[in-house]
């Protein structure tokens, strides 16, 4: 497996296909905010896959699920928003602005309590930058802080509405065990059993070298494929080559080639 070649070609393909897809979408001028949201989410999905591809050291059970959890989360969010584009995109943005406004208020409190002038100045800079970001979209006095979730539903219900409950059950949930440091993950990837019966086979911490698993990269490509398909079906557009088609072609070509190289090597 020539990883360097794979990364370069995957990167080139994803960047080109992202641009091709977005160019084919006809942005409706009266729904610019909503398109900003879904465009941003599309970009993030591609970025996550690119970043994972660029880091083969992370193609293992410790790190790859951090990416894949974010990618499945994004897919559920996006597919639910697309069912009522304008309203749900507004909810998504409002919640994000509220989160930042709350953070600004927390920094302001921090400034009052900060022990020295230097810290106060640094925190004030953050407040200024964040306030200006909020005000560029909505006057901050009009931004509501909602301490709950951004959508009125939890992710399970969102996935049910958006007809992707299997993804929620069999990908989002298991990857969440990794992202949230839950026992099913920690006990397998960060622990091992002491085999001393006098210690009741208790579980002890261990720094485990998780095996290299290119399958995680395949899954990442699959989630980009699902995301592109969602855009294709929602906006009735077609992409010249879908990510999984690219994947199959790439490996078909390169496996054939490496087999031929092997035969040549043996002959010579």
């Amino acid at each position, binding site marked *: 497996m020539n990883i360097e070649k794979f990364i370069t070609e995957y990167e080139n393909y994803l960047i080109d296909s992202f641009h091709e897809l977005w160019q084919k979408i006809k942005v409706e001028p009266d729904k610019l905010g909503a398109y900003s949201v879904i465009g941003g989410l599309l970009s993030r999905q591609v970025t996550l896959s690119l970043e994972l591809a660029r880091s083969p050291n992370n193609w293992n059970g410790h790190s790859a699920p951090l990416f894949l959890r974010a990618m499945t989360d994004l897919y559920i969010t996006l597919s639910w928003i697309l069912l009522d584009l304008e309203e749900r995109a507004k909810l998504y943005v409002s919640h994000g602005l509220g989160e930042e406004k709350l953070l600004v208020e927390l920094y302001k409190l921090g400034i009052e309590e900060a022990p020295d002038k230097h810290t106060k100045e640094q925190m004030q800079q953050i407040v200024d930058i964040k306030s200006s970001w909020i005000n560029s979209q909505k006057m901050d006095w009009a931004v509501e802080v909602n301490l709950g979730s951004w959508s009125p539903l939890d992710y399970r219900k969102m996935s049910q509405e958006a007809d992707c409950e299997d993804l929620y059950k069999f990908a989002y949930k298991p990857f969440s065990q990794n992202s949230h440091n839950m026992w099913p993950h920690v006990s397998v990837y960060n622990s*091992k*059993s*002491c*085999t*001393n*019966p*006098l*210690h*009741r*086979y208790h579980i*002890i911490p*261990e720094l485990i070298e998780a095996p290299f698993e290119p399958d995680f990269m395949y899954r990442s490509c699959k989630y980009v494929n699902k995301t592109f398909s969602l855009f294709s079906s929602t906006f009735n557009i077609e992409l010249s080559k879908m990510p999984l088609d690219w994947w199959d072609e790439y490996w078909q070509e390169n496996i054939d080639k490496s087999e031929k190289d092997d035969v040549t090597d043996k002959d010579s």
Partner: protein
Amino acid sequence: MKQIANMQEISFTDELLPSLIWMAALYLRCDGRRATKVIVEFIKDAESVFGEKRPQPLHEIGNFSLLSSEQKQIIYDAVKDKKYFETLLDNLEHQYHLLKDYPLSFLFEEHIYAVDKIEALEMLSEDVKNLLDRHSSIATKVQVTAVYTTLETGRLKICHPVKLPDFNAIFTEPDSDEAKHAAAFARANMNGSIGMFRQDNDELNIKAHSWAKYFWAQTFKLSDCISEY
């Protein structure tokens, strides 16, 4: 299941295993028939010295730790000349040697022995290992024998319609349905026993002992963690 009233979570390993460990040693190193005979006769003799005022079931050795020195002396006098006595001590001396405040230590007053500490540790590990899997052959024999002693001492009474399994089946036909019935009966009975004796209850005149906790605290310090791939 945990929503059912009075349902409690119990642990065979944490709470009961240390009290049954002595039986595992006998079953591991004696013929099954001989081990059963030694265990049952010893418990019958030990409990019989109390007459009507019976202590808590002594097949769980943690209950010996609740007895007074005088009571232990009476038991010792009653069993020291029995035929099974030397077999009992020979097979438990490694546990006595390693474990502080071993509940059966009063039996060893006059016993002369020589135990290699490393060998003793290996034997104790083997005793524990065989009970950690509660469905293992040794663990099944131990649990069935524990229930059998409660029948023999008259503690457990079975009402007429309840069909008592054939406990011999676990020795003679361990893979038979009858043996599975006996094993399941014994495990269920042990579970009930854990729940019953885990805390003091003045109304039922029950006193909880701390042998299990003490046992695990000691065994943890006896040797280091073993970690291998």
